[in-house]
């Protein structure tokens, strides 16, 4: 379930990029979940044609997905019993990714170079493209040859940064079939998948098809079409059938749309966050070793929120470390020492029989705790910081006096701070009445206030505040630009005196707000995606 400010933020992003109409349809989907075309028309009061166009834009840019639910239709959209209707769902995660394009570009360009980066930029800008469209775009922009473009696209697909688009209208089975299957194989309680996750799981092509790119497939298709001209007397029926089959496969290949694979990019950003967290807590050497472990185990990772990396031996890790020229001076013993440090509590790296694996959950939780504590310290003060750390670590209810004793603070100040934090949703409070008669504590009983941090609820509160803050930054930037649009419209040589000062201030404001947005987005990823 997306929070209130999450929806507002997503709608703002869509408004900025695609306009009010598309944003209206997107908001309708975000607030109401999956809807049919008729339901969207009814709720938005827009014409069916406009709604259809808005949906096409959202789907083109991977912000929405169509699907058919394989169960009987009921309610306001009831048609013939058992008739399957196409529904649409907004992809909140992909909408958030739209502010991360520069980070994604950075990842791709650093690894694969400028020309791949440029090709990738096109996919981000246009949402999804066929091979022909990619080639045409590259030809128009940088006069790249078809072969070079196809080579670059092949590199991107091989690195899993680009994938084949999901099926346009997959048939999604009811949730009962899914949960039963998973419950049988797993003895651990597993959170049920959301509708968005179920739809995307079904829509995604198989791993082979998803990352299978055949260069010059269109050329081959043309050649095949020439072969399939009225057959000569030497070609028998068998060959005709074979040609028809390969024609179909090639048509599918040629018609495949390609798009950025956000999953892989998110995984890279998660790795980057882990390395940065370790660098701050330890040193550059430890960060280098962790980075090498991530690189060595990358191929085995199958999802973004993996709890642990695959186990690696010390030799494997050392070989990966020294692959990078900058690390040639690192000795085997130095790498082992770093691993021992990382294995010390809190164990960011687990050891098991001479093999080492990264505990992503621990690193992510450490980074999240740091972020929350930083907010508490600045917002509520030092006493609140200590109270929060105490309750967070305790994980249970604690009485006011006991809290005051543990943090060495006066009871009055402690009470005041606890109430402030409770009012802002950072703590849970329970009242315990002990003794007294059944008619109330005033007849000799005493009441105690107990406090607790509910980690899950707190993360949701913080995430909602982050969305709110991100929205505010965007709105403030728009306000500043609006207030100074006259100065912006002046030609550079006409900006003098107060106008120049205003212009310089606006430039600094833009830089500050943009960098704050990027930093805040890292924090949003930490709480929402990692």
């Amino acid at each position, binding site marked *: 379930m997306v929070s209130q400010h999450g929806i*507002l933020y997503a709608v703002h992003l869509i408004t900025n990029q695609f306009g009010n109409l598309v944003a209206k349809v997107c908001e309708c989907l975000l607030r109401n979940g999956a809807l049919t075309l008729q339901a969207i028309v009814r709720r938005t009061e827009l014409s069916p044609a406009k709604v259809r166009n808005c949906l096409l834009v959202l789907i083109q840019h991977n912000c929405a997905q169509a699907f058919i639910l394989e169960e009987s239709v009921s309610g306001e959209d009831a048609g013939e019993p058992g008739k399957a209707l196409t529904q649409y769902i907004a992809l909140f995660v992909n909408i958030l990714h739209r502010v991360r394009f520069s980070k994604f570009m950075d990842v791709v360009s650093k690894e694969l170079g400028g020309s791949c980066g440029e090709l990738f930029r096109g996919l981000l800008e246009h949402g999804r493209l066929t091979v022909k469209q990619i080639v045409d775009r590259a030809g128009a922009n940088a006069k790249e040859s078809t072969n070079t473009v196809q080579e670059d696209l092949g590199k991107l697909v091989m690195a899993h940064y680009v994938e084949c688009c999901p099926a346009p209208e997959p048939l999604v089975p009811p949730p009962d079939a899914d949960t039963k299957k998973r419950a049988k194989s797993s003895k651990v309680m597993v959170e049920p998948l959301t509708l968005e996750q179920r739809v995307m799981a079904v829509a995604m092509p198989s791993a082979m098809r998803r990352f299978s790119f055949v260069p010059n497939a269109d050329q081959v298709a043309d050649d095949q079409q020439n072969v399939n001209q009225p057959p000569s007397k030497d070609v028998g029926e068998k060959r005709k059938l074979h040609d028809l089959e390969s024609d179909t496969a090639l048509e599918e290949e040629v018609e495949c749309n390609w798009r950025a694979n956000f999953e892989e990019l998110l995984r890279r950003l998660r790795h980057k966050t882990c390395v940065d967290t370790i*660098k*701050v*807590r*330890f*040193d550059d050497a430890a960060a280098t070793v962790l980075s090498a472990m991530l690189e060595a185990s990358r191929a085995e990772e199958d999802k973004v929120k993996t709890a642990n990396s695959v186990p690696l031996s010390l030799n494997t890790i050392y070989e990966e470390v020294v692959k990078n020229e900058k690390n040639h001076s690192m000795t085997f013993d130095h790498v082992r020492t770093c691993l*021992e*440090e990382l*294995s*010390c*509590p*809190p*164990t960011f790296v687990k050891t098991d029989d001479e093999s080492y694996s990264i505990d992503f959950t621990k690193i992510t939780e450490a980074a999240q705790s*740091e*972020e*929350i*504590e*930083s*907010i508490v*310290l*600045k*917002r509520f003060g030092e006493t609140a*910081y*200590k109270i929060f*750390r*105490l309750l967070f670590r305790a994980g249970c209810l604690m009485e006011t*006096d006991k809290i005051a*004793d*543990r*943090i*060495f*603070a*006066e*009871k009055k100040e402690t009470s005041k701070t606890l109430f402030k934090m409770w009012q*802002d949703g950072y703590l849970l409070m329970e009242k315990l009445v002990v003794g007294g008669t059944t008619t109330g504590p005033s007849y000799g009983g005493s009441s105690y206030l107990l406090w607790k941090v509910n980690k899950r609820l707190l993360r949701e509160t*913080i995430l909602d*505040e*982050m969305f*709110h*803050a991100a*929205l*505010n*930054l965007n*709105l*403030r930037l728009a*306000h*500043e630009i609006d207030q100074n649009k006259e100065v912006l419209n002046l030609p550079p040589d006409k900006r003098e005196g107060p106008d120049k000062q205003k212009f*310089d*201030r606006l430039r*600094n*404001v833009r830089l*500050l707000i943009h960098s*704050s947005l990027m*930093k*805040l987005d*890292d*924090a949003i990823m930490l709480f929402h995606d990692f």
Partner: protein
Amino acid sequence: MGMWLRDIKRRSNLQDAIVNKSIISLQAKNMIKEVVNVKNKGKKHYMAVEFEPSTELTGGAWYDDDGNLHVEFINIVKKCCLQKIKQLKVATLETVLQLFKTSGVFKADLKEHHFEEILGALVLDNEVMEVKSNGMGEFGAIPEGKVCYKAFDKQRVGAAAEPRIGAMASMPCGVCPRIRSCTPDGVVSPSTCVYFQKWLEF
């Protein structure tokens, strides 16, 4: 534990004025004394001068005679403990206790639970880390699974001892007390926010 003034009045069945006068007279003759209840300073407790009040009333080693938290003393003990842990790199509660017993630095009779409270406070201050020994590396001398304390290395650049300013905390909305009332077109909004105004003053 002494006796609360209200309880004295109730049990003696005497008028308030008489009880108050008697209390003053007994105090003047040095037969009873007033003891501050740290848990509730409004409740006056009295006891015979020969008795020592229990720590439940006085608060123990961390409170002065007036029932106030002895902040200076607590900070001194914390500082000393932190220095010892930094010297040792990793220390258990027993090690710290032993060091202070042999050195005799503090005149006050500090027991094991006092040092446990101090070490707990250092953890909450983010000066030390509470960890469980894994018997390897710097924990080699400590049995596996034993709780020990490790100081953060302030020499390292960006070490965790100083709480880092996170993304949210570095912008006005992250620490705003009015964020819940803030809406795009409301009285409190990003366009009219005074905190934003200050933040964007160059």
